[in-house]
């Protein structure tokens, strides 16, 4: 059974059609890429999946459960995590707290337990703290655990965003332009990292990316969007030679 099934997903912002008839079947363990020019509706697709927007039409099934109409935090706790195109860390909080916040739904104690610092609170907190630190350690961020998130260098902020997404214990990870603003060296590291976390955490991944190197390098399958429409779909090799893709990216003149 596919992990994620999207049927006829359509979304309008007022009169503007941002996404039209988007379909996707994602098998567990796949790593697929979504590419397209700016404004093609890629991020909107992520926002629709994670409940930031409610789609005008269409349905989204994750693991057999309908997602449309659910709140973002409910969707995330079902096992979908994401990162953001522009980094959205909790800038004034510590690196460790950034990750611990993402364990909100996985930490199980009620308000009274917290207010009176009952044994269950201490147990759960100790566990959550340790798991968060372990995750930071795995991603090479443990030495910065007490730093304020905004003081991290750019590449590590991207990494922390990934760590924070992983802390929610996802099965499906949505990465929104993780290579944006990175230099070639950092991009190579990022590609390694993505493939490593995929194996380590047994993840299914959807990657939005502008850097062709990244998408062509690690994705098994690619979908191309333009003005909200899916204009092509296939393996990296097929996409590279697809005339409609070249047209969308380079303009009609280039095809001639």
């Amino acid at each position, binding site marked *: 059974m596919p992990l994620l099934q999207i049927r006829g997903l359509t979304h309008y912002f007022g009169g503007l059609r941002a996404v039209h008839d988007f379909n996707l079947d994602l098998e567990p363990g796949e790593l697929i890429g979504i590419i397209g020019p700016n404004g093609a509706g890629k991020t909107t697709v992520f926002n629709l999946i*994670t409940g*930031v927007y409610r789609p005008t039409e269409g349905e989204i099934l994750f693991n057999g459960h309908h997602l449309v109409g659910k*709140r*973002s*935090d409910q969707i*995330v*706790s079902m096992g979908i*995590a994401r990162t*953001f195109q522009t980094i*959205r860390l*909790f800038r004034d*909080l510590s690196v*460790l*707290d950034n990750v*611990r*916040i*993402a*364990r*909100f*739904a*996985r*930490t199980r*104690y009620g*308000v009274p337990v*917290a*207010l*009176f*610092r009952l044994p269950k*609170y*201490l147990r759960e*907190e*100790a566990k*959550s*703290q*340790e798991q968060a*630190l372990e995750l930071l*350690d*795995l*991603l*090479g961020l*443990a*030495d910065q*655990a*007490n730093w304020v998130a905004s003081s991290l*260098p*750019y*590449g*590590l902020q991207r990494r922390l965003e990934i760590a*924070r*997404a992983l*802390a*929610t214990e996802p099965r499906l990870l949505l990465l929104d332009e993780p290579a944006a*603003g*990175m*230099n070639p*060296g*950092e991009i190579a*590291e990022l590609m390694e990292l993505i493939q*490593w976390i995929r194996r*380590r955490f047994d993840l299914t991944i959807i990657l939005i990316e502008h850097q062709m190197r990244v998408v062509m390098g690690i994705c098994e399958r690619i979908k191309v969007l333009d003005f909200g429409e899916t204009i092509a779909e296939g393996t990296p090799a097929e996409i590279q030679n697809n005339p409609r893709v070249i047209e969308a990216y380079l303009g009609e003149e280039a095809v001639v």
Partner: protein
Amino acid sequence: MTQLLSSIRNGLSRTLAPLRAAYESLPVPVRRWTMPALLLLFFVIALLSPSFLNLYWQQVLIYVGINIILTASLNLVNGYMGEFSVGHAGFMAVGAYVASIMTVWVFPRWGLREYVPYLFPLALLIGGLAAGLTGLIIAVPSFRTRGDYLAIVTLAWNMIVKSVLENVDAIGGPRGFMGMQKLTSVAWVYVWVVITIFILRNLVYSNFGRGTLSIREDEIAASLVSVDTRKVKITVFVVASFFAGIAGGLFAHIIQFINPRSFSILKSTETLVMVYLGGIGSLGGSILGATIYTVLLELLRPLQVWRWVIGPLLLVFLMIFRPRGIMGMREWRFLIPPEERPEVIDALKERIRKKRGPAVAPAASVGASE
């Protein structure tokens, strides 16, 4: 202004440095009992205070304590959560009236007149719960919308409470409500301050507290890392209202006469001043802000009515020049739970590092990029 506020903080930490050094030289088992011992010591001093403090200074201390409770609880909403509630006095009013009704009418009517002093904590709790309940009623609809609406709703709430109290003749209407015994003492206020700070600290350093901070930082990102933002907001608001109610009950039983004007927008504004003076997102800041402001107002008594200009003016300057206040986002060490202190986290990190195998993610070249 900015320099003045940071020099207050720095001066304080410099003055306390020798004390802290002495504390740190103590062996760990002694250290563990230092805090409870100090709390107990201060309690004994508070109990004995009527024998060496005159009534005026007792009253100032009591106001300081009440204001700490008000400030710390409002800080939860305005500082930690970054919302803007301007009607804290409304919840204080609910607590004050309900607690007073308990001690003046309900308990005596149940034939418990002699026991009223012992039932005082119960009356306060009932007042607090009533305030918390009204907090819930306000929070549920206002947090459906985002941002500035809370300011408008709480502003309206404060006015509604005042008008209702003015128009219900049974509880005195505009004339006010009286007949309370003078039950609030320095010791009682001290106990409630300790309880308030303890519970708020527990909340702040829990899952819910971190969720609260994440809402201030970026609400959408918070919900996208699984924080149930609605639940967190409502919880925080109800807890804050509860403690405002407790403060109201204490207030009513020291001045022994309350009227709707005691809980006007001016009272709410004063609380805002103390929050932003002391520092947002800091319990230590709330203690400092409430203490400094309360004592300052007492010292400015010769200015008479003009001293009420100081508060709002201070608020304007604070918001412009130093919106984070004296302690903004910092905390006194003793208010941080032991397991949250940086050195404890570092130790845990080393333990994890030893335990784990070599399977670590591909390294990042730190600071390589622009």
